[in-house]
């Protein structure tokens, strides 16, 4: 059954913004699908609201719509583009849900669009708990006992029957949202209520607990001729009870006999056939009782998933690409295995190494959230490591996380061991190691954790070996001992700490003893066939397979695991750097350890090294490849921290000199530079004591912004309005020392913040790519603020000043490539807040808005080309429409956390809205961000004194637009004074019915609540904001945000549903996708 010729135009639905549970793995899968289908001559139309993705690059599809993933906007795209088919399976749960919604709304029938990948009934059978259960029973597969409930009463009744604990899973929610484990009646009521609310169909599944059972996943593919294969088996280190996205996972499965594995394989294939997944990839999860071997099926996803991305990277088998090909009629045996070339894709990859994935959490950004893991996913990213053995892979994985934990930066407490082992939490692995160090036996740890004894033995052996290493010294260690340590995954820096020497001393001694890293290939076949793709990982084996070429080559350092503040945007830039290098005829070498990304796809770069981004590992690759240059400015903070050490080791960093990157972060030097250039900055100082900090703050005058001197995505920043806050912050929230003073800035209240991305070349020419005006005032982290291109309120004069300053700074820092500057504009004065001579988070957004490929030009500039070689544009790049970027927050995953915005970044992703006017673009962005603005209803206002005038004006406008107004007393008085009818309501703590009651009753459709920004929020504010998240009512916390919202609401009443493809906007006909 070859390629289908009855379809020509295929719509691909993306997965929208990066959120917890749905991250860049779907950029990877979507991009692969686009490429695969276009290579086959299909026209691809793409809709996705996330501008930071490779898949939304205009050359990846024939028509690219960065539009909301809602039925109405998708229907408009379908109406305009008339696709023949919709591929539903590569856009995660969001893509699947939208496909179902379009089908159910009759849109697909109306325009004759065929659902390919997974059909509607297959999706329903897999996603609907009850249908799934019936289907599995029909084919004789065992499941945990369960019952679907629509009321809390039924839930209690069923739980009483099967006994606690029970697992709750709301139907059709993402990443297990709203699920949990109930150990008693009280838990059950709480979780069930929330789950019923979050489920779009108001259903929750109550399930027999299989806590502590071994957990497995199989990645399965099937074609129309019913050929089916298992791509990869995955075993979870953490037993059942922890969401698989929050589990350390291992490929292949380690503790199954062939009999058990084949039983699982048979069950997975049966499941796929019964559900009716005709083509494509699916993921089936199983649990096995470690005492009896009873196996139950847990769930299946009839689409490409996070685990598929992991399995693809773990085996070298490109699941998403193959899934797309199968969806258009190909059979597995008609598709070639890219890696071996001579063998077909219809086989089961076998691997001769071990892969370990470790999630990365950021509970510290969500004070109030308990750092406990359960059935709801909380991790924001993950790192994958490949080693020849489990120990080697685990060691590499731990250091890939860059949490500092591998380096012993965390202190463990004896009295917490048992608690930390019993209840799954982000530090559990660290505590297991600590427990062994403290003499716990494997049996004791197994009893507390239920983790398989084989895994525990491995961890135990690592701990023992580390202890053995402390018995030798740098001078006395033998080659054999050194080799053993390296083969078991111990890092040079760990040895350096043990021996109290520098990591480079360890390196030198290691090389002296002839203990060198080599590189092995990921080849899908355990070396049975020759591999043609240089996809590599390091090991300490005897034979190096790297086979570097003698071409001119450049190495790109990626950004590692996703985290808040360092996400897909940087991977986007790295991928583009790679594409650009290839276009310029230079070999591109990618180094990264994030399995979710496009950058770790084996065909993105000429050569791929799947390695931790540490000095040790990067130097190993450098010494093997000997590249002509290394690019550090695209991967965010991760490669930047390596820039200076690499330079010192003689590595040629291309682009802006690392010394100048460092200078921009050095308070004193940078302050001096600004003085010389006569560019204003907020007054500032630094302190190394509590009292010192209070003194500085007093001198500067409140409010002040206080932060540590090393900053990662706005970690641990605070805006202090009084000395109390400064004092408490210094005492509790921050680590400082003589070397690491705390930085204190005068905080500019009510200033407008502006982000600038610019390019600069070796001749000193500067091109400003975008001047983005933030919607929220300065003080909200730039990553958490919506922004708009072009700016809507800045004067010509201000824009000219910004342009001048940007050019001056670029030249002064000898920037070659990209730079980002944050400004604050207050009363006509432009202040510089921060300069980052590197690619920023906004690069993809600006690129999509202007149609200019910024990273590509930046790479050209690093190679010595001039801006004028790429574009005739000078000054500031023009934009044709309004483009609003809005952040997306994970507050629904952290119940109880105050969702107010501040200087600490907390958004996980972003969306873009396009419009002919600002209001339209903002309305679309808000819809895409999952906080759609209402068309009608009641707006609740409560604002602080300085916002009251503006609030009254907004209330007037909203009344004209047909809204009713409610406000708390003070605000209501101000609104009433302006002649607008308003209802007064109690504050949360004043009496009842209060604002929260109205919220819960569903009678409020929009909240405008400007509190005392930055200071300690009052219980009232917190209650409002928390409930707004829970009841999904948009809550705007800044007055400038409110102004934007009102414009957006006006647009919704005025402007029709309309969409534009990037190709139309930028007047480009699509060149055939190069890649």
């Amino acid at each position, binding site marked *: 059954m070859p390629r289908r010729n009855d379809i020509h135009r295929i719509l691909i639905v993306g997965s929208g913004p990066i959120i917890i549970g749905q991250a860049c793995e779907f950029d990877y899968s979507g991009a692969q699908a686009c490429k695969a289908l276009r290579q086959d001559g299909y026209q691809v139309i793409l809709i996705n609201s996330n501008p930071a993705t490779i898949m939304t690059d205009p050359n990846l599809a024939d028509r690219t719509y960065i539009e909301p993933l809602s039925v109405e906007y998708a229907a408009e795209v379908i109406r305009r583009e008339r696709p023949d088919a919709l591929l539903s399976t590569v856009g995660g749960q969001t893509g699947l849900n939208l496909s179902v919604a379009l089908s159910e709304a009759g849109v697909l029938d109306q325009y004759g669009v065929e659902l390919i990948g997974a059909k509607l009934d297959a999706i329903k059978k897999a996603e609907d708990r009850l249908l799934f259960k019936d289907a599995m029973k029909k084919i004789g597969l065992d499941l945990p006992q369960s019952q679907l409930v629509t009321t809390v009463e039924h839930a209690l009744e069923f739980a009483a029957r099967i006994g606690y604990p029970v697992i709750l899973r709301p139907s059709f929610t993402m990443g297990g949202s709203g699920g949990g484990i109930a150990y008693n009646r009280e838990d059950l009521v709480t979780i069930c209520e929330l789950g019923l609310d979050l489920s779009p169909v108001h259903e929750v599944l109550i399930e027999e607990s299989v806590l502590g059972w071994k957990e497995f996943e199989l990645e399965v593919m099937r074609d129309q001729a019913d050929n089916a294969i298992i791509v990869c088996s995955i075993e979870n280190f953490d037993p059942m009870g922890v969401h698989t996205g929050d589990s350390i996972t291992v490929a292949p499965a380690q503790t199954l006999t062939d009999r058990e*594995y084949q039983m699982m394989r048979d069950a997975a294939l049966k499941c796929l056939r019964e559900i009716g997944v005709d083509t494509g990839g699916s993921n089936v999860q199983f649990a096995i009782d470690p005492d009896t071997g009873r196996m139950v099926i847990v769930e299946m996803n009839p689409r490409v998933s996070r685990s598929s991305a992991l399995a693809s990277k773990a085996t070298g088998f490109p699941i998403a690409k193959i899934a797309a090909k199968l969806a258009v009629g190909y059979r597995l*045996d008609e598709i070639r295995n890219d890696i071996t070339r001579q063998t077909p894709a219809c086989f089961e990859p076998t691997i*001769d190494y071990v892969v370990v994935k470790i999630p990365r959490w950021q509970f510290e950004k969500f004070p109030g959230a308990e750092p406990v893991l359960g059935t709801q996913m909380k991790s924001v990213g993950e790192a994958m490591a490949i080693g020849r053995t489990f120990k080697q892979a685990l060691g590499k994985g731990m250091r890939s996380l860059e949490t500092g934990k591998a380096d012993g930066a965390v202190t463990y407490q004896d009295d917490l061991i048992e608690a930390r082992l019993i209840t799954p939490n982000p530090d559990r692995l660290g505590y297991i190691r600590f427990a062994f160090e403290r003499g716990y036996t494997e049996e004791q740890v197994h009893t507390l954790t239920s983790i398989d004894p084989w895994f525990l033995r491995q961890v135990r052996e690592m701990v023992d070996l580390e202890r053995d290493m402390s018995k030798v010294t740098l001078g006395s260690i033998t080659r054999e001992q050194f080799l053993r340590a390296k083969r078991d995954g111990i890092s040079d820096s760990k040895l350096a700490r043990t021996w109290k020497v520098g990591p480079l001393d360890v390196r030198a001694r290691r090389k002296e003893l002839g203990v060198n890293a080599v590189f092995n290939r990921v080849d899908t076949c355990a070396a049975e066939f020759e591999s043609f793709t240089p996809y590599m990982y390091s090991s300490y084996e005897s034979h190096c397979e790297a086979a570097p070429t003698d071409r001119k080559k450049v190495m790109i350092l990626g950004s590692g695991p996703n985290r808040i503040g360092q996400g897909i945007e940087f991977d986007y830039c790295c991928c583009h750097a790679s594409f650009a290098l290839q276009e310029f005829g230079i070999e591109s070498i990618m180094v990264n350890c994030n399995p979710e990304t496009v950058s770790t796809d084996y065909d993105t770069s000429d050569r791929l090294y799947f390695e931790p981004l540490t000095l040790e590992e990067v130097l190993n690759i450098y010494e093997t490849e000997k590249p002509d240059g290394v690019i550090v400015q695209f991967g965010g903070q991760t490669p930047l921290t390596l820039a200076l050490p690499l330079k010192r080791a003689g590595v040629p960093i291309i682009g802006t000199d690392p010394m100048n990157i460092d200078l921009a972060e050095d308070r004193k030097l940078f302050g001096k530079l600004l003085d010389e250039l006569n560019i204003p900055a907020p007054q500032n100082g630094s302190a190394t004591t509590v009292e010192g900090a209070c003194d500085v703050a007093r001198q500067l005058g409140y409010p002040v912004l206080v932060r540590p001197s090393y900053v990662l995505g706005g970690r641990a920043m605070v805006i202090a309005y009084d000395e109390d806050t400064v004092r408490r912050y210094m005492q509790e929230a921050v680590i400082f020392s003589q070397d690491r003073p705390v930085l204190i800035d005068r905080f500019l209240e009510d200033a407008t913040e502006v982000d600038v991305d610019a390019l600069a070349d070796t001749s000193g020419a500067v091109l400003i790519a975008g001047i983005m005006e933030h919607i929220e005032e300065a003080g909200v982290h730039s990553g958490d603020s919506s922004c708009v291109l072009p700016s809507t309120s800045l004067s010509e004069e201000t824009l000219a000043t910004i342009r001048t300053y940007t050019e001056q700074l670029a030249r002064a820092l000898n920037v070659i490539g990209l730079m980002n500057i944050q400004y604050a504009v207050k009363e006509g004065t432009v202040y510089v807040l921060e300069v980052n001579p590197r690619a920023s988070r906004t690069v993809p957004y600006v690129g999509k808005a202007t149609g200019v490929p910024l990273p590509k030009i930046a790479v050209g500039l690093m190679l010595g080309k001039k801006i004028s070689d790429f574009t005739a544009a000078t000054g500031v790049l023009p934009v044709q429409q309004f483009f609003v970027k809005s952040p997306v927050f994970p507050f629904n995953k952290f119940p109880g956390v105050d969702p107010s915005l501040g200087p600490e970044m907390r958004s996980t992703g972003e969306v873009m809205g396009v419009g002919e006017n600002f209001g339209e673009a903002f309305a679309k962005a808000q819809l895409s961000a999952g906080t759609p603005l209402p068309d009608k209803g009641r707006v609740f206002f409560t604002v602080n004194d300085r916002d009251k005038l503006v609030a009254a004006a907004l209330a007037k406008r909203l009344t004209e637009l047909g809204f009713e107004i409610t406000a708390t007393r003070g605000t209501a008085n101000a609104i009433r004074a302006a002649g607008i009818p308003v209802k007064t309501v109690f504050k949360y703590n004043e009496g009842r019915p209060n604002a929260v009651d109205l919220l819960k009753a569903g009678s409020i459709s929009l909240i405008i609540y400007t509190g005392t920004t930055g200071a300690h929020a009052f219980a009232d504010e917190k209650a409002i904001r928390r409930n707004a998240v829970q009841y999904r009512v948009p809550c705007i916390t800044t007055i400038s945000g409110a102004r934007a919202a009102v414009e957006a609401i006006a647009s919704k009443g005025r402007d029709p549903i309309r969409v534009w493809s990037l190709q139309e906007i930028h007047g480009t006909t699509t060149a055939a996708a190069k890649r």
Partner: protein
Amino acid sequence: MNPAVLALEDGTVFEGQSFGAPVERTGEVVFNTAITGYQEVFTDPSYSGQIVVLTNPQIGNYGANENDSESARPYIEGLAVREFSPLSSNWRSDQTAQTFLTNNGVPVISGIDTRALVLHLRSRGVMRGVLSSISTDTKELVERAKKSPSMNGLDLATRVSTKEQYAWDLGAIAASPSEDVGDPAEARFHVVAYDFGIKRNILRMLVQSGSRVTVVPAGTKAEDVLALKPNGVFLSNGPGDPEPLTYQAEQVRKLVGKTPIFGICLGHQILGLALGGKTYKLKFGHRGANHPVLNKVTGRVEITSHNHGFAVDPDSLNLNDIEITHMNLNDQTLEGFRHRNHPVFCVQYHPEAAPGPHDSHYLFGDFVKLMEGGK
């Protein structure tokens, strides 16, 4: 930990740690790429005369258990792995892999770069080797490898075959309370199985699909087989080179046309020889559980389990009499054929799996259908 050495005839030497029995053994060094199923590999008599390298780096994790053996004892000469687990973790395990191999006299070398070894064998072809846990004199060991007997031309099947005829009536055993293997079908047929090194799962599958089985030694005469009044004859898998098995090929030639015949692996090769074909040695063989085989009759691809170093040359077969039914999609080698005029069919790979996927279990049903036709 004691040292162990694996020395190849071409002078390549791997040094590692010793597990298993403290002995020295010679054999042909071959690699298997299956991720699971090491116990089945250890105990498959087809590995007789071979030192096996497993590409999965973590071996021994789930120990060994009574039900997963494919014969009475391990047949591999030695085992080479990247990391051997002294601990076993699985509810079915009754001993560690270490104990299992030690008690059965099999030496293990662990900690070696198995990938480099596989790359070497892939490019140079399989070769003789010595695995020693008692000597570290690498020069001497290489010499011993050079002097060890070659597998080519050797009749290993007779050596591993049962000496006495016996009856087998045990069906499949579930590996878990969740596995429904079902009761064996009513025993309507009598199958005589030639044991050239037969795996137990073949016997279990035959029973499961409705046969009682009489297992006979490799040297049994055709007349004696027919005297047992079988409904069908099964030709088993087994070790080594098929070419010296001229006597067996002669017996099989006599059986063709008299009774339905089903052959697996060495049985397939013997059938090929019996029907006038030729066999040849593959450079490094097929050993693993992931080979795609196209069933040319159904058009479906089966993921199959393999263990063979020799193959039947399809060009040597008379296609007027023989229809090619199965082909390997990796290297286009012959994987199965049937006779156009007689109820005779065979496959080169292992439909009984153990270890490996169950995609080809249907072949046992096909055998039953042939026997039904003969009733």
